[in-house]
């Protein structure tokens, strides 16, 4: 597990072998526990998850089962994991986090809007801590899943990051590639 610098001790990056979304989340939750511990206020913690492919593998695997067994006999086991928001739900259950729970289908380009929501929730005191999680599942069993985590406890931290990332505050020209490399968030389009 690598610890990045700046906003120190609150940025983490890891990767693990991909199984399927359900099995991989066991490893992801174990990693989150190791690096973040337990949330101080689980009911005032928000989880903001960005993934480019959550649910893809399970959706295809589920339908393969349907094609094989027919719609009348297919096993529903995989179905909950076909939803992109299943991983974020799994994190909430593992940690008992009952605050706001967001899932975005996106990439690093979605950081600005995600930070905007965190800024709002922190400023309005709907949460006291935000876990911003970027989670890209391996596309197949040979590829690794990549996890990045940023933790915020203060709207000022969020705004500082936004100012750091963009050429102007709330500028939408796009993220600088330096910034992207720095945070090791996953691929842009």
């Amino acid at each position: 597990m690598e610890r990045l610098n700046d906003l120190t001790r609150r940025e983490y990056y890891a990767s693990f072998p991909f199984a399927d979304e359900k099995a991989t989340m066991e490893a992801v939750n174990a990693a989150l526990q190791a690096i973040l511990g337990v949330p101080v206020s689980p009911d005032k913690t928000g989880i903001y998850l960005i993934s480019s492919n959550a649910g893809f593998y399970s959706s295809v695997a589920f339908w393969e089962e349907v094609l094989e067994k027919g719609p009348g006999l297919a096993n529903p086991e995989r179905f909950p994991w076909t939803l992109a928001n299943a991983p974020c739900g799994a994190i909430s259950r593992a940690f008992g986090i009952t605050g706001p729970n967001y899932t975005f289908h996106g990439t690093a380009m979605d950081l600005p809007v995600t930070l905007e929501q965190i800024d709002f929730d922190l400023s309005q005191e709907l949460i006291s801590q935000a876990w911003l999680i970027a989670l890209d599942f391996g596309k197949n069993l040979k590829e690794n899943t990549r996890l990045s985590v940023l933790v915020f406890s203060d709207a000022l931290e969020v705004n500082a990051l936004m100012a750091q990332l963009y050429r102007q505050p709330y500028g939408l020209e796009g993220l600088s590639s330096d910034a992207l490399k720095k945070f090791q968030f996953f691929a842009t389009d």
Partner: protein
Amino acid sequence: MGVATPLGMSVSGLWSRLLEGQSAARAWEDLAAEGYRSNYACRIEGIEHAPFRRGRQLALLAAESAVKQSGLPVPKNTGIFFGSTLGESAAFEFAATGQSIDLQDHAVRSIARGIAHQYGVENAPTAIATACAAGNYAVGMACRALKKGRIALAIAGGAEPFSRLAMVGFSRSRAMSNQYCRPFDVNRSGMLLGEGAAIFMLERAEDALARGATPLAEVLSLGLTCDAYHPVAPRPDGSGIRRAIETALKTAGVLPEQIDWVNTHGSGTKLSDIAEAKALKQVFGENVPTCSGSKGALGHALGAASAIELALCVQGIQAQTLPPTPCHEQADPECNIPCLSSPRSATIQYVLNCAFAFGGLNSALLIRSWNV
């Protein structure tokens, strides 16, 4: 605002059929022939679309109505906030046959991009993948961006094409009714699958007024919580739902007694309806406001559901009319939720739109009539 639903492709058409208590639920021969155990669903007929682009087509049809009604040009830096569950689920089904297809280009964001492309919007659109609550999320998030001053105009909503994947999933999970969806009814036996889209144009009130427009309604707040309980079942005591509603009320500084109407999630499953009923009783005590549910009429349109239902809330405010709950015939005393069997005129100011997703994501969007 604009809609695409099995009961109509315009808000006015949908509304009048809903007031008559109509339901789009019926048996479908193609599903029966393909071996589906339950073949009742609510689907839109006569929509032409490119292969694997049904979701996009529904979203664009709804967006077209919304943009037209607003009379506004769509600037390049419009914020687009769009929700869906699977996006173009047919693409995933196709991939399962072993054929090659770019799934990134067919998931939730692909529909959001379709809207952006249609209107020449250059901002990266936001794709919200929170399933049955996605519409509420989209509208709530759009409002935050508007309040922040980052954007002047937002296009927000949700869409979901009819999904065979979801049809099998819910059916085999034994969550699906064999015939009708009956929210809060003692004889309810599950949900029905629907499809559709609803899209809203949103701006700051002062901007609308400055150009002489009268807003259809005002969005006040969005309450979000997570049950952190089970992959699919809701927390039985309804506490997660209760907290979402309370958050919405508290954020807006509105008291429970001020709520005139609750548009419920009302999916018609045994567990979900009970949990929602408990939550409403905890929030409102003995005085639960009139409730409505439209999933008996339209089925459960997943990522589009809360957006379509929001359109019904706005329309109800415009018409100052509380709608009935189609297919609700005999109230379950365990739920005891006050639904109507026919429309009723009422003074409607504050309306709650509730929507809950698999995994225990609870959303409550609070809106208010625009009082000049």
